């Protein structure tokens, strides 16, 4: 099975595939489309989509990277609710992050494990992110203006664990600033930052999963 529409496998004459698009000629008013693809993050040198960045597996989807992960109407005026599950070898990829709240996690046979993430807020695909790698957290808690608890994690390589204190203080100050100046209360249970030397895009403010270099001054606004 490669692609199915409302559970029915698509036949070869129902779609057209090019190197940049997938066209399905006849579809109903409302439907679910399931598509299985295979990608090669280790060979992805475009710095868009899912790729290996040093010892990390990470995404860069702004502006047009999500189309390198799956077939999608990759434009910013389409906003959807994302649920993401990630499965990998635990020894190689102990930490697996995506947008939103961590819903579930578990162990599989053969040393593999999985996590599932859910972001209840509709977002354009260019704000999708995932990261997998051997990262260590520096953690704290922020209490929002209405009293909600938000877990804060800055994920770094072990060698950088002692450099996160200022960033954590800055993050909490920025969240307070958003509340006091703009009336914006943080809207999830969790906020993750990944700060690794290997991230070659500089910095990317995805929904609840900022990715950047430790040397980069983080910009937390709007995320």
């Amino acid at each position, binding site marked *: 099975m490669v692609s199915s529409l409302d559970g029915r496998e698509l036949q070869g004459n129902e779609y057209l595939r090019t190197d*940049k698009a997938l066209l399905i000629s006849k579809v109903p008013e409302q439907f679910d489309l*399931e598509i299985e*693809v295979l990608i090669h993050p280790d060979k992805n040198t475009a710095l868009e989509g899912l790729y290996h960045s040093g010892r990390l597996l990470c995404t860069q989807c702004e502006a047009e990277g999500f189309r390198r992960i799956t077939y999608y109407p990759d434009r910013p005026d389409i906003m959807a*609710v994302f649920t993401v599950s990630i499965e990998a070898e635990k020894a190689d990829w102990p930490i697996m992050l995506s947008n939103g709240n961590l819903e579930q996690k578990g162990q599989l046979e053969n040393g593999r494990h999985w996590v599932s993430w859910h972001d209840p807020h509709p977002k354009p695909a260019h704000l999708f992110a995932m990261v997998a790698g051997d990262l260590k957290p520096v953690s704290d808690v922020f209490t929002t203006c209405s009293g909600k608890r938000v877990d804060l994690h800055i994920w770094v390589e072990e060698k950088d664990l002692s450099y996160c204190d200022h960033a954590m203080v800055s993050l909490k100050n920025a969240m307070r600033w958003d509340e006091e100046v703009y009336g914006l209360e943080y809207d999830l249970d969790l906020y993750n930052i990944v700060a690794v030397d290997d991230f070659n895009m500089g910095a990317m403010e995805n929904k609840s999963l900022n990715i950047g270099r430790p040397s980069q001054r983080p910009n937390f606004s709007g995320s």
Partner: protein
Amino acid sequence: MMAFREGLPATIRRVDYQTPDFTVTAVSLSVQIFSGRTDVTATLSFVRRGAAAAPLQLNGEQLRWS
């Protein structure tokens, strides 16, 4: 985003804007990481917004059928 990339992106003009024929309400993504390859299964919930005869057009680059 602070990004540094080679070349200039293609110009997208506001005057050329057209509303999408379909919107996506929900994305369910299953990502399985293996050595040398990653399998991605996406379940996308579409709702038509445009003309009844409009085909579904999706972007995709460097994707292989599994």
